[in-house]
C-alpha cells in the first residue's frame, strides 16, 4: 500500500513541472509589453526597454523558464505586470475564497448527486427515473454563467431572498456554491446511476439474491459498495471542473477569489498573474486527484492487494499452492 502512495506522490512532481512548462510556454507565445503598461504611454522607449530587460523578458526561453521554476520552488510567483505587486500576495488573499466555494460545492454535489443517482438506478424506467435523468442532464449541460445570472435575477432581484455579491453572510454562499456545483450534481447523478445499473447486472448480485438477501441489502450492501469505487474516481475530475467554473461564478457574484484574478489578468494582459493563478489551481487539482486515487485504492481490495509488499505476495502464493494440492 505504501509503495502505491509513494509511487503516486513521486508522479506529482513531473506532472506539476509539466504544467508549469505548459503554462509558461503558452504565455510566452503572447507578446507582452509590461514595461509599456507599467510605465505608461508617456515613458520613453529606452525606459520601457530597460524595464523589460530588468524583468528578464529578453532572455532565451529556457533561461526564463528556469528562473521561473526557481522562483516557484521558493513559492515566489513573480511580480504582476500591473502595478508590480507580488503575485503571491494576491493569490494568498484570493485563494481562501475560491477554495471555500469549491470544497463546499464538491460536498454538496456529492451529497445530492449520489442518492439521486442511486434512486434513479433502483427505480429504472419509472417516471421518477426518467424525470430525474432529464433534470440531471440539463443540470450537467447548463452554462454556469447563465445559471448564476438567472439565479441572481430570481433570488435577488425578484424575491430579495439572497444577496448577490460577496461572501459576507452564510446566505451569500448559497448561490455561488450551488451555481458552482450545478454541473457536477448533474454529472454525479448520471455517473452514480450508470455505475449502479452496471453493478446491479453483475453475477454476484444474483448470488446475493439467491442467498435470500432483502432487496435493500442487495442494493446498499452489495451494489453500492462496488459502485462507489467507480464514482470515487470521478470525484477528482469533478473537482477540476469545479475549479474551472469559479472563473464565471466569481465574475457574476463579485467574489474576490482566484477566478476574478484570472478574469482581470486576461483583460490586463498580466501574464505572471494569469500563470500563477492557473498553476495554483492546476496544482490543487492534481493534489485532489492524488487523494482521490488513494481513496480509490483503499476502497478496492483488488487494488490494495496489488500493491501489497513482496513478502505478503509470496506468503499468499504459498498458501494458494497448498490449497490447490
Amino acid at each position, binding site marked *: 500500500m505504501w509503495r502505491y502512495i509513494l509511487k503516486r506522490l513521486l508522479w506529482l512532481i513531473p506532472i506539476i513541472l509539466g504544467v508549469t512548462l505548459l503554462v509558461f510556454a503558452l504565455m510566452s507565445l503572447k507578446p507582452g509589453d509590461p514595461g509599456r503598461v507599467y510605465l505608461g504611454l508617456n515613458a520613453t522607449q529606452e525606459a520601457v526597454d530597460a524595464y523589460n530587460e530588468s524583468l528578464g523578458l529578453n532572455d532565451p526561453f529556457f533561461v526564463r523558464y528556469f528562473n521561473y521554476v526557481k522562483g516557484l520552488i521558493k513559492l515566489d510567483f513573480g511580480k504582476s505586470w500591473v502595478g508590480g505587486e507580488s503575485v503571491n500576495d494576491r493569490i494568498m488573499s484570493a485563494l481562501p475564497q475560491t477554495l471555500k466555494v469549491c470544497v463546499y460545492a464538491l460536498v454538496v454535489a456529492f451529497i445530492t448527486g449520489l442518492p439521486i443517482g442511486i434512486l434513479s438506478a433502483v427505480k429504472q424506467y419509472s417516471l421518477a427515473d426518467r424525470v430525474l435523468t432529464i433534470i440531471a442532464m440539463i443540470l450537467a*449541460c447548463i452554462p454556469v454563467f447563465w445559471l448564476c445570472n438567472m439565479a441572481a435575477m430570481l433570488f435577488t432581484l425578484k424575491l430579495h431572498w439572497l444577496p448577490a455579491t460577496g461572501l459576507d453572510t452564510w446566505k451569500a454562499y448559497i448561490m455561488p456554491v450551488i451555481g458552482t456545483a450545478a454541473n457536477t450534481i448533474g454529472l454525479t447523478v448520471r455517473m452514480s446511476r450508470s455505475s449502479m445499473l452496471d453493478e446491479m447486472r453483475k453475477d454476484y448480485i444474483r448470488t446475493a439474491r439467491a442467498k435470500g438477501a432483502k432487496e435493500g441489502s442487495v442494493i446498499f450492501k452489495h451494489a453500492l459498495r462496488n459502485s462507489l469505487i467507480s464514482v470515487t474516481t470521478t470525484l477528482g475530475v469533478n473537482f477540476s471542473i469545479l475549479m474551472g467554473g469559479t472563473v464565471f461564478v466569481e465574475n457574476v457574484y463579485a467574489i474576490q477569489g482566484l477566478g476574478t484574478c484570472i478574469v482581470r489578468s486576461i483583460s490586463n494582459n498580466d501574464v505572471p498573474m494569469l500563470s500563477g493563478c492557473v498553476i495554483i489551481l492546476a496544482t490543487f487539482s492534481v493534489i485532489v486527484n492524488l487523494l482521490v486515487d488513494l481513496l480509490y485504492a483503499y476502497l478496492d481490495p483488488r487494488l490494495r492487494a496489488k500493491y501489497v509488499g513482496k513478502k505478503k505476495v509470496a506468503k499468499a502464493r504459498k498458501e494458494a499452492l497448498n490449497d490447490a494440492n
Partner: protein
Amino acid sequence: MQTKAKTKKQKNHGAAYDIWRSLRSNKVAVVSMVIIGIFVLISILADVLFDYETQVIAQDIMNDLQSPSKEHWFGTDSLGRDYFARMLYATRITLIISFSSVFIATALSIVIGGISAYFGGIVDTIIMRILDVFLAVPSTLLIICIVVALGNETVYIILALVVYLLPSLVRTVRSELMINMENEYVEAARSVGAGPFRIMLIHLLPNSFGAIMVRCTMSFALCILSTACIGYLGIGVRAPAPEWGRMLSEAQEYMRLHPYLITIPGFFIMIASTAFNLLGDALQDAMDPRLRGYRKMKKKVFARRKK
C-alpha cells in the same frame, strides 16, 4: 457486424440497423435528433433568411432594446440589431466551430490512440503522461490560456478546443482498441499476414466505432459549452460576429429591465448541448445489447405467474 440467418419471419439485420431501431424507438433520442436537425437547418438557412450585413451587424440605435414583438421575434439588442437574426447566425458559428473541433480531435485521437495502443510500452506511457499534464489543468483554464496566448481568431479557438478534447478522446480510442486487441480475431488476422495498419483500419476501428461515436457526440456538447464560455469572457469569437456566450455577457447590464436578452442565448446553449448529450446517452444505450429487451415490460416484480 452481426447478421441473423434469414428465417421465415425475419430479414437480414446488421448491428447498425439494430442501433437505428433502438434510437428510433427511444423518444428522448428522437427529440434530440430533431432538435439537432433544427439547429443544423438553422445554420444552413441563416443566409437565406437574414442578410448578414444589413440585419446582423448593422447597428440601429434608434431601435435599441425592443422587447420581442411580431416584427422582431426575439426583440433587438442594445445596438438595435435584430436578436433573432443574431441568434441564427450565432448558431451557425457555434456549430461550425464545434464540428471542426470534434472532427479534427477525433481524427487526431484515432492516430494517437492507435499508436499508443498498438505500440504499448514506453511509447504508451509517454503519451499518457503528456495527456495527464494537459488534464491536470482545469479544462476551462486550459482553453483560456491557449486563446489568450495565441489570440482569438477562429483557428485558434478550434485549436484550443481540439487540445481540450484530445485527452479524453485519446483515452477512449486507446482503451477501446486495447480491449478489442485482446480478441482472437486480431491474432487470426495477424496469422494470415495482415499488417498493423490493416488490422487497425479494417478490424479494430470498426468495432470501436460505437464507443468513439458516443464520445464524439458528448464532445460536441462540450465544444458548444466551451465556445460559449470563452465568448462570455470576451476572448471567444470576435465582435461583431454574434456568438451566444458573448451575447449573454453583453446582456448582463440590461438584465434587470430586458431579461429576454440574457435568457434567450442561455436557453439556446443549454438546449443545444443537452440535445447532443442526450443523443450520446441514447447511442450508448442503443449499443448495449442487454438493454434492448428491458424496455417493453414495466412490471417490477420478479417473474411470477400473471395473476
